[in-house]
């Protein structure tokens, strides 16, 4: 029983890993946004990044 469950777990984990690698899934701090204004190409400064925790301007404390 233990062996069967473990084999099932192994198959799921390895298949999941292979699928994730194939599709490029993975943990990331990247924020996905939809409907980006086309004007960004003409006016790059007008774009406001959507990652919230640092805001659009990074201020480092070094």
């Amino acid at each position: 029983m233990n062996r069967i469950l473990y084999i099932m777990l192994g198959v799921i984990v390895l298949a999941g890993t292979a699928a994730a690698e194939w599709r490029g899934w993975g943990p990331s701090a990247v924020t996905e946004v939809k409907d980006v204004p086309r004007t960004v190409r003409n006016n790059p400064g007008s774009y406001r990044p959507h990652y919230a925790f640092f805001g659009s301007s990074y201020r480092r404390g070094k």
Partner: protein
Amino acid sequence: MTERTAGCPNCGAEIVFRWSGAVQTSCPACGSVLVRHDLDLTKVGSVGDVPPSMSRIQLGTEGTYNRLPFVVVGRIIYEYERGHWSEWHIRLADSSSAWLSDAQTEYAITKQVASPGTLPPADTYRPGQPVALHGAQYSVGSVTRALYSGVEGELPFEYWDKLQVIFVDLKGTANAFATVDFSETPAMLFAGEYVTYDDLHLTNLRDESIGGGPRATSIKGLNCPQCGAAIELRTGALALSVACPSCAAILDAQDPNLAILQEHQERSGRVAPKIPLGTTGNFAGERWQAIGFQVRGIRVGGTEYNWREYLLWNAERGFRYLTEYDGHWNEVAVLKGAPSEGGGSAGVAYNGEQFKHFQSAVATTQFALGEFPWQLRTGDHVDADDYIAPPHMLSREASADEVTWSLSTYTAPQRIAEAFKLTTPLPAPHGIFANQPNPKAGVARTLLRAFSVFTLVAVALMAARFALARNDKVFTENRRYSVSSGDTAAFVTRVFALDGHTSNVEVRIDTDLSNAWAYFNLALLAEDGSVGYDVGREVSNYAGVDGGESWHEGSPHDKVVLPAVPPGKYYLRVDPERDPADVNTPFSYTLSVRRDVPRLWPFLIALLLLAVPPVLAYFRELAFEFGRWKESDHPWSTTDSGDDDE
């Protein structure tokens, strides 16, 4: 075959010789003991009363030994502290003769060793002592002082005027058995092996309905001389002591009046057997009757540990035991041979199995009920050593004149309850018993084997992934951050194509920063505006010398992987920033983008995850063993790395 005949010199009856080599015989008519000189017979004595026997073997019984037919032609009867036993003289089909020992349903066949060499004198043998005789290794099983009790039939030598005789029984490996017989000078050596009743395929046995016999079902009814309660003897002549079920007095079962051996037992120690005495159980098609019950105990470190023993009886197979401690049951068979000592560190080996020493203690009988084939008293004690190889346990019990080995096999309570059809359920086992099989044993090994396969599969998947990944550099651009040239503002790159299936995108930043940092607001944006990916990356690179030691922190390079980006045309929007204090110091950097980059770490994490169950199983197995050995003479210690930690 023509059998020789002669006339009895005492009564004239015809004497038929079954074996031509017989030196002595007895007259079935008048009981004279006759010594033969060719066909002339001389009376040398009388047979007297042959003691009652539980054995079904008789003169004329036939059987086979090692596929060789034999017939029982004579018998010598001895009396010792456990009653009587018979040495049956058998004539084999090859005209040789041998001895079939029949003591309390234990059978052994031996032949006299013609030139045994010089045998050590009787007073040099001690129970348990290793002995090498005639090229074989034995250990002394018992030293028995027996009384000659009678003869009948044909014998290969004159044997009729003995008194006390000393026998030393020797147990070899497996079923090897030998006896040193000190009835003659010089002593004689008989070597052979233990056999079972079934091995012998005996026929022409005594009718079990007359004179008892091992199948005797008639119960001898008596009354306790102390309290008058009815007492039943189920094993007849084999019983040497019996404990009254009412007053618990221990009585001499060999005495017609049941002489009291021990008046009473401590009432506080009275325990009701979970298997009622007299109950018959069925184990693997064999019927065993519970006839005796005793409570025994050991004292370890000031703590008393008591267990219960049930004596079982089967007419052909003799005696066996069931033991119970804290709900843990064992089926116990007394070994005929002796394990070989020295099977590893302080262990023994038996039947190719290595046993580890578990515990040594003095075992004391504390309470008894029912009948026993030895003269039992409460307070009887033996030196007991236990060796384990779950589900088996070998136990060595040594008294002053005997060493016995027994093999226990751990048994589920349900098996006992079903065998004896007990109506009261037996309590569930509590704690961990010495030879209890580890329920977790082998799980870790099984999972580890599967894990090995998973590792191979993971490596194959990794190899395939690295071989098949596009890993295309789809964009690269060199930039310079400079206030003077105005290249500090946000900008967008040219459009580049991300081909293939949905997969990751790696954005890499290589700078020439030194003791400085910069921050990059990055956005990978679809040309058609349908989707974008925002991420901020810091690049910092510092190095120096502090207190004479150089140090380095950070890196002038950085990269980020954007997950699951669909194929299409994209561009980067980049907004570089740097330390306001260094804002006027320019630096160069290169942006590059790779499509479908293979990664190692997901497979490593998967393997790490899959390693958890085998590791957990191993620790659970270890925890069980820790609990087992905690109760032994060799508890595991986290600080001790000695031999005990096995």
